[in-house]
């Protein structure tokens, strides 16, 4: 496959040789997307991972009855990694924000390579695990910060309860 060296900067290919990258990408299906088209949608069963060969995308997730933008994806970003490890529903939607080409590595292909004992795919799985661990760490920090914020807000409210009560008794309802 030509241009394999181009894909050395894809995070899930870190530590892979060019030959290993080529093996993973062999048989991958390039998908052409217009701006606004979905690579995949939230809730759909995961059936493979995607690498943005060219173009740009946006990660979106449902919040109530709206969809909110979470993060932009540039060229050579990898998405839907969980789709090669488990068939769970997609956790977010990916939409092309300009004409985009995405390479799809199917779960079946991934499974074949794992069964064969492919080094490249094993390294990809390690990279995915490392990435998920990083995301979990970040999530824990954000959760901790959010909990502190909520506690602070709750305390502020409670103090305001008594402060407001004092004002009511000494100002509005003084006699």
């Amino acid at each position, binding site marked *: 496959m030509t241009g394999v060296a181009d894909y050395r900067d894809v995070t899930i290919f870190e530590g892979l040789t060019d030959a290993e990258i080529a093996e993973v990408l062999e048989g991958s299906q390039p998908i052409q997307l217009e701006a606004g088209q979905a690579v995949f949608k939230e809730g759909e069963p995961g059936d493979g991972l995607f690498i943005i060969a060219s173009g740009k995308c946006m990660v979106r997730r449902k919040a109530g009855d709206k969809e909110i933008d979470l993060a932009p994806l540039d060229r050579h970003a990898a998405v839907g990694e969980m789709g090669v490890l488990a068939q769970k529903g997609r956790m977010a939607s990916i939409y092309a924000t300009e004409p985009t080409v995405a390479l799809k590595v199917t779960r079946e292909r991934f499974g074949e390579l794992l069964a064969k004992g492919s080094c490249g795919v094993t390294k990809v799985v390690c990279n995915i695990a490392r990435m998920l661990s990083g995301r979990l760490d970040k999530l824990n920090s954000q959760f901790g910060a959010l909990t502190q914020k909520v506690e602070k807000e709750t305390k502020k409210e409670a103090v305001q309860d008594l402060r407001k009560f004092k004002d009511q*008794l000494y100002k509005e309802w003084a*006699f």
Partner: protein
Amino acid sequence: MNAFEATNWFFTKAAKRMDLADRIQLMLKQPERVIEVEVSVELDSGELANFTGFRVQHSPARGPYKGGLRYHPVMDADHAKSLASLMTWKTAVVDIPYGGAKGGIDCDPTKMSEAEVERVTRKFTRQIHELIGPYVDIPAPDVNTNATTMAWIMSEYSKLHGFSPAVVTGKPVDLHGSQGREEATGRGCMYAAEELLARFGKKVEGTTFAVQGFGNVGSHAARLIHGKGGKVVAVSDVKGGIADPNGLNIPSVIDHVKKTRSVVGFPGTSPVSNEEILTYPCDVLLPAALDGVITKEIASEVRAKYIVEGANAPTTPEADEILDRREVVSVPDILANAGGVTVSYFEWVQNLQQFKWEKEEVDAKLHRVMRKSFDTVYNLATSKKISLRTAAFCVAIGRVGKATLLMGV
């Protein structure tokens, strides 16, 4: 709706009018402590009786707890909690330094000998003596308890803590009770009526009154109103009522009751039922018997222009709204019948000072308290355009709230 539900309803109405947060309302409503004890005593027959005694102590913010002790086979915890809070509001309205309490024992003294009731009382006192006291919690008489019961409590408590007349009020006058206590609630009602009428350019003299109930509160109120030149045109008791549009001779009615145990049959009067008396034509209606007697149906038919609540919660919340709409002005129970607890306070003060006041001094001080309390409530009602009842609760919440904040939550 009964007395305790009505108390909560009126408290919530005032709290909402003041725009108090739910958490603040809960803080004010919840009792500080609920005590339950198992009171076992040997009856005269040798049989062991197991009673339950309890005491709800509602709010300590403004002073020691104060409230009655009732002996009744049916005791309801929610009922007691609400009546305890009622005492907090009442003592706050008249600005005496107490919080509210209520308690009792689920025995039936009408089916017990005096010795048995004494044993139950002394046992209960021994069980709660660490949780009551002159500066802690001061019980008083209530349903089926009386001055003698208070004497027993004082006696048992004093054995454990030394001479302590101030541990209870409502004691016999011969055992450190106060002059003027017996007629205090009725007298307070009379003062409340006097203050209300004055705001409308009227006096007790020449005004007509109908009094439902001729027990302690009703009979003294009627007597004192009559003494001031008021025309009591109808009175009633459990057996029925009597009416005379020209005004009853109340001292003679009292003599008649002493002989016959009822107002019924007093000569020269026409009969009137306990329900009819509430809608009898008069200027001032004084319910001094049971709770919940002025229902929404009765409220539409009340012909009095003013109501002075001698009983606890005689007016239901729906009736209260109707009376408000009809512009019938009510002096609420927590103000009108606070004369009793006010003179209880005087008894406690005399006991602490170990100095007795003459009746004239007690009456004069009661008059001053009732006048000042009425003034505060009336002025707030006028400035905020709310009823006297809502204003009274707002004054109570204001005083209890400030004390709670200053003492520290």
